[in-house]
């Protein structure tokens, strides 16, 4: 076991796959010699050279398009979109081209590619560099979507994404890059579509994603310590495929569900989870499902405002405690 930061685990996951498979190539802005603006690709350029690790112009459509064209002709590209907000400038390539091409060609075209991107708030970057847009991707049929919350997960899920025969969007979280965690030695290979129960509890289920996972965990500690409420915490990890079994299995046990979403309220991933659980676990629920989300507003930049906008440990504790009280 080595202790790695989340950002180093990203690089480690990519390196592992590049080592293993010559078809894996990397492209994006400033990812090469500079090691990426979040330093998540440090060392790869030196190790694998400019043929496999390629800096690009500021041309997100070209980046994603190139990844798509390369994937359909035998490579396994990993494209970086520096901030997930920039999905806006290449959304056609992601949502209309990559997501639909296998289907439209009746399976003739395969697109084994990965799009990595820095998602989420916490850096005081303002409304155009802090969004959580995992729900944008989840809403588009044809994309697989993961959002790891720990160094070990990010390494294993990147490996799984690279080996997957379908396009996978990996949402890395900006505010997790500097977080450290144990990462098992040896080959990392996780599975897409598997949620993880991080903490068991009998009173209620909290489903969270990415940065919201450590917050939910801390909230669960406090709910236990201060209010005697035993929360089961699920790291959803993968939005598509969605591990409804794990989530519903927990709800059947606890009869209560809270979701903690960083995406703004309307049509967030929690809405989908809530609609599924409300339908299929209707008779199991003892009380309404409560969604804890970023309010439906763009994100403010100032530190004080930003901190008060996305779900905090306090807000989770308060909401759960009030609902359970």
């Amino acid at each position, binding site marked *: 076991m080595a202790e790695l930061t989340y950002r180093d685990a990203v690089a480690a996951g990519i390196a592992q796959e590049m080592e293993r498979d010559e078809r894996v190539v990397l492209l994006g802005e400033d990812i090469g010699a500079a090691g990426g603006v979040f330093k998540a690709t440090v060392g790869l350029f030196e190790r694998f050279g400019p043929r496999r690790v390629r800096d690009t112009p500021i041309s997100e459509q*070209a980046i994603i398009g190139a990844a798509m064209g390369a994937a359909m002709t035998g490579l396994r590209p990993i494209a970086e979109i520096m901030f997930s907000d920039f999905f806006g400038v290449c959304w056609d390539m992601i949502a209309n081209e990559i997501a639909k091409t296998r289907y439209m*060609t009746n399976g003739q*075209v395969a697109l084994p590619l990965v799009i990595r991107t820095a998602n989420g708030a916490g850096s005081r970057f303002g409304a155009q560099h802090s969004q959580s847009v995992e729900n944008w991707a989840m809403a588009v049929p044809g994309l697989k979507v993961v959002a790891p919350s720990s160094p070990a997960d990010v390494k294993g899920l990147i490996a799984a994404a690279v080996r997957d025969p379908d396009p996978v969007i990996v949402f890395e979280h900006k505010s997790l890059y500097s977080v450290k965690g144990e990462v098992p030695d040896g080959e990392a290979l996780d599975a897409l579509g598997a949620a993880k129960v991080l903490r068991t509890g009998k009173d209620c289920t909290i489903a969270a994603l990415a940065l919201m996972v450590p917050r939910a965990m801390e909230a669960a500690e406090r709910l236990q310590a201060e209010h005697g409420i035993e929360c089961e915490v699920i790291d959803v990890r993968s939005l598509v495929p969605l591990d409804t079994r794990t989530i519903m299995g927990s709800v059947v046990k606890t009869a209560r569900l809270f979701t903690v979403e960083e995406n703004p309220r309307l049509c967030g991933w929690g809405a989908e989870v809530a609609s599924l659980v409300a339908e299929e676990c209707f008779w199991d629920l003892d009380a309404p499902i409560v969604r804890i989300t970023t309010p439906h507003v763009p994100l403010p930049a100032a530190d004080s405002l930003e901190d008060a906008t996305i779900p905090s440990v306090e807000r989770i504790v308060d909401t759960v405690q009030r609902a359970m009280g």
Partner: protein
Amino acid sequence: MTTLEQARPLSAADDDIGREKRLRMYRMLLELRLCEKRAYDLFLQNLVKGTSHLSLGQEAVAAGFALGMRRDDYTFCTYRGHAHTLARGAAMAGVLGELMGRACGVTAGKGGSMHLTSVEHGAMGSYAIIGAHLPVACGAAWSAQYRGTDQVTVCFFGDGTTNIGAFHEALNFAVVWKLPVVFVCENNLYMEYTPIGTVTAVAHPAADRASAYGLDPVIVDGNDADAVFRVAAKAFERARAGEGPALIEAKTYRHSGHSRADPAKYRPQGELEQWLQRDPVNLYRERLVTLGYPELDLRSIEQDTARRVDEATQSAKASPTPALDLIHKDVWANGGSAWRN
């Protein structure tokens, strides 16, 4: 500044192309022409579902390029892609069937007329959102470069497409990475119903932009299949030699409306008639005659092609509608569409 590749003087000695290729070219031109005409007939019979965008009048571009391509080269084209897909060798029944929403369609009805694809023939897809396939073509070219094959990627698009962002990104990207990709602008004078000149800052939408990417401006007579073939061959040679991309503007004209819904009333009187006099199929036939190809040979090609189009039509008409379970197939590589466990 722009180079207009002129048709060469016609004489029997003009054999830089050669008999075998010329006859293949004529056969291809005819096949594209007759197949498009058939598509139109089928539309009139209400058998074409959805939209369709014919290449009638533009066949020499598709044929001239395809004839110069290697089997393993890649073609990327647009919703106006029947001709390009056929030119790479896709079955006529597959194309007509797709237009009709039949199981025999090249994508079994899932893609429709705007997404004809036949990967086994190097027809890597028809793209219906303007500009999107230019970056994708860069990716295929990058892959060929990376794998060290000397495959060329050819990417066709219209004059109107030169005004969208993806065009710019792809051109710059291709040059910076020195990719073996040939961009071909089929300038048919119209962006849907709007004359291209009214929405474009320059006279030659592609050629006048070439220098913005450090490329040579190239304009070719897109109704002269030989001229197209020669320009293509030159660009392919350079691309295979690692000398990077090319941007070629082929001047041409579509004989029918933009799509099946369009009677093309916006065209000035006489414009169509003028272009019909330079019909690429007739032009080619006349050239072959001038070059001394026997009438009989040409007739036999014509009859054979007509017969094959009829057969393809019959076979497409006889094809059933696709099985409904296709709806839930092939979202994922495992064949299915499950998004949960």
